[in-house]
């Protein structure tokens, strides 16, 4: 074969920057880089210039200043004396709260609607189609406003719950009013730690049982009723413990001690005899809860004097900070016996229950509003419902698509092998559908989280309203504030989509 002479070694020429594939990409990138840097520096220099013209600077110091405004829903300690940074934190937590609640409810709604839409029941599937199309094709903002309006316009005011009003509480303990929903709040009493301990242990037991069941199935083939046993393990020990503790300490009723009265008075009589009723109590305990309940039941006005523990409460009682105290019988007798000087406590007729390991503080009507219990504000509920219903409609489509994406052949193959319909669902259909469902599902979560910024429509105090709203407005730091706000959302989004990519790479179907 003939050979060619060596071609002369090429030296670098300028035109190679453009024509040589090796250098060309470098050239393009350098040019792009220069354009990019020019663009950015143009923007930055404009900003600097503008700030200078306005006499402003770029400074995050405002975050340390006193915020001065109140926030109604706060998951961490916050008062108007706290800093703007703290207010931002409250907002961030509120955003995360509504996003989390929204994702949870949207998933439930979406899965139910998606499955029902595939139902053979014509009526149900039509109804779900109406739900899905209705929510998907109308702006979310309109739904938020409409649901908020529905909640404020069509639910009763707190004062309608008063006697003579036409509203009443659900099951006697849930109040749905146009200021929000009040639900009973749990209060942990004596023995609560035991109860929680038992609960944790039963969770561990469930986990252990499932493992055991799995092992046993592998070894012998026997299939244990995992679901039923888990359910039983979940409830029975806790309930048993609860009643046991209730039996042990809840049965004893304890005396109400009062100073400056005679023995044998009822609460009402005593209250009438006194100028004012000051009650020593330790907030957050079941004893205090039941004492207040009794006081309210007797319809007497009183002031609560809070203390941190029983010793202090007793001391306060002795020095006259208050004139009413309730302590266990074991302590009340010595107190009465050892009383000296002008201090002469006597037990009243009424007694109170010390309370169970877990009790619920019922909401009750106070001055203007309900007191006690947990207050779910309308803004939260409206935003939460609207976000969930809206996103749920999208999730329903995703779920439906996911299930439909598993071919009928898969079901048939499973049936032909003798698998029952519910096992077919669990072992064959769901694992496959999940792969299709999860990625778009997570991007729906992302959308929901971002859409939670529509809180502005209902006055929910999310991070946009605190940091990106009032704080910016009070301090005039819009550049810094918006930057932080954008950054927060960006980080949140990247975290969520990072999770998505991780999941995706984990479960990708193996193919040739």
């Amino acid at each position, binding site marked *: 074969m003939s050979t060619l002479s060596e071609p002369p070694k090429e030296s670098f020429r300028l035109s190679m920057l453009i024509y040589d594939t090796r250098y060309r990409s470098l050239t393009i990138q350098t*040019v792009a880089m220069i354009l990019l840097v020019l663009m950015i520096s143009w923007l930055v220099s404009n900003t600097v210039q*503008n700030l200078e013209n306005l006499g402003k600077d770029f400074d995050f110091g405002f975050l340390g200043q006193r915020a001065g405004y109140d926030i109604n829903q706060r998951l961490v300690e916050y008062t108007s004396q706290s800093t703007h940074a703290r207010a931002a934190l409250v907002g961030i937590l509120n955003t995360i709260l509504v996003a989390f609640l929204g994702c949870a409810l949207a998933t439930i709604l979406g899965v139910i609607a998606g499955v029902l839409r595939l*139902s*053979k*029941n014509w009526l*149900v599937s039509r109804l779900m189609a109406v739900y899905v199309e209705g929510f998907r094709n109308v*702006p979310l903002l309109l739904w938020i406003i409409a649901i908020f*309006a529905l909640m404020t316009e069509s639910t009763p005011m707190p004062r309608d719950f008063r006697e003579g009003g036409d509203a009443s509480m659900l099951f006697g303990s849930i109040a749905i009013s146009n200021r929000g929903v009040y639900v009973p709040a749990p209060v942990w009493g004596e023995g609560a730690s035991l109860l929680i301990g038992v609960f944790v242990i039963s969770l561990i037991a469930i986990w252990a049982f499932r493992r055991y069941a799995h092992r046993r199935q592998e070894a012998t083939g026997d299939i244990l009723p995992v679901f039923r046993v888990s359910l039983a393990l979940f409830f029975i020990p806790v309930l048993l413990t609860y009643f046991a503790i209730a039996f042990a300490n809840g049965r004893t009723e304890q005396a109400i001690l009062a100073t400056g009265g005679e023995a044998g008075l009822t609460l009402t009589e005593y209250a009438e005899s006194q100028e004012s009723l000051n009650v020593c109590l330790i907030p957050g305990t079941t004893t205090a809860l039941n004492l207040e309940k009794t006081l309210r039941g007797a319809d007497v006005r009183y002031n609560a004097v809070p203390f941190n523990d029983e010793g202090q409460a007793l001391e306060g009682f002795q020095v006259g900070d208050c004139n009413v105290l309730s302590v266990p019988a074991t302590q009340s007798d010595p107190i009465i016996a050892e009383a000296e000087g002008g201090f002469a406590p006597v037990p009243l007729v009424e007694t109170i229950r010390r309370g169970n390991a877990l009790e619920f503080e019922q909401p009750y009507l106070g001055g203007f509003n309900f007191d006690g219990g947990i207050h779910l504000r309308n803004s939260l509920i409206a935003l939460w419902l609207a976000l969930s219903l809206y996103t749920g409609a999208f999730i329903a489509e995703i779920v439906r698509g996911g299930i439909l994406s598993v071919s009928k052949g898969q079901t048939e193959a499973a049936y032909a092998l003798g698998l029952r319909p519910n096992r077919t669902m669990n072992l064959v259909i769901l694992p496959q559908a999940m792969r299709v469902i999860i990625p778009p599902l997570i991007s729906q979560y992302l959308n929901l989280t971002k859409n939670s910024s529509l809180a502005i429509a209902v006055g929910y105090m999310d991070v*946009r309203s605190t940091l990106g709203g009032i704080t910016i407005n009070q301090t005039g730091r819009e550049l810094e504030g918006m930057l932080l*706000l954008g950054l927060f959302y960006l980080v949140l989004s990247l975290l969520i989509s990072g999770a998505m990519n991780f999941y995706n790479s984990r479960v990708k179907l193996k193919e040739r």
Partner: protein
Amino acid sequence: MSDTHAQTVRFVRESMLPEQEPPLAESGVLKWVRENLFSGWLNILLTVLSLAFIWFVLSHLLPWFLNSVWSAGSLSECREIRDEVFGPDASSACFAVITDRWHQLVFGFYPPEFYWRPIVALLLFLAAMAPVLFAGIPRKALWFSAAAPFLIYFVLWGGTIWGPLAVALGFVVGYATFVGLSRFNALLATLGAIVVPILYWLFVAGPLAGALASVLPIGLTFVPSDDFGGFQLSFIIGMAGILLSLPLGILLALGRQSNLFIINKTSVAFIEIIRGVPLIVWLFTASLLLNYFLPPGTNFDLMLRVIIMVTLFASAYIAEVVRGGLAALPKGQYEAADALGLDYWRSMRLIILPQALKISIPGIVNTFIGLFKDTTLVVFIGLLDPIGLSNAIRASTEWNGIYWELFVFIGLMFFICCFSMSRYSIYLENKLQREHR
């Protein structure tokens, strides 16, 4: 083959059996009802629940709808009419507010004598989108699509025609530079096509338009931005967002597909940042911060700034849609284009993009639906979209206290638009699937 079973009957059917009707329980309405509504206790339960729900909703809504008042001048008049006709306690909708104010809800404060202009603009928009949305239309029509934004701007805002023309000329200048320079070098041409028009817009376009306008004043009555409102505003923002974000989105998608590190990473960063932050934050940025980033003294109106922001926002989403389309093309198409000697831009323009865009149309339509719905967020920065207008209407003394009628009307309008668009995109998807089989 001795093992053949003794009893194996050879069987031959001499005459074919006729087709029979299925047993009675297997056909007709009865079967349908049984199978679709009452098979199994769960199904029965669901049916009953659904019926109860439907009854509940209808029993509340139907009287309200049926007893509606359609013509009245104010809410109190409405109530009077209701008291007269249906009795004082009847639940009754007062759709008179719609008949009274529909023109505001639809056109905002746009001068009524010019209502034809937004309508023409809508038609122009549809005509401009047609080549993108319907694969059957000749590609030449894309030139019209390119010209449409300027035309639409002119029709809507009015003023002298030379302004939009001068701006449009910038693109022509850019293209001319590209063609002129690409004889020498493609890279230089690309660069020139970016730089020259920018210089032109900065220094030449304004004076040129001014000069032309003073020589030859052609134009329509100018309508200021704050007269825009209602569905017209939603449409304008949505349409502008889509029309303008398409080219940008395509560029971003190409950037994201590119293996040039800086271009790729810049595109990715842009897309992720835009998509990671809620639109409402971007809108606030547009209304609060955009002026910080522009040269001191620039001031253009809020609506334009919103359109810019929405365009950037939509382009990130379009980019992802188009990227999907690009990825769906077989590698062979790229190779065949290379093997024929087409360069990058030509192979993109002639081979890759026409195909990728076609695949992306359903996604683009879906993006548009989302964007259209999201235009309601502009109410928070003080633009009068339908929701903003509903607030304004409620603030007037005549209609103070009216609520649901406006929501129902606005919701219904959005539903009709979005639902029909989503049907179209589903139809397209099915069609694509059939073609790709």
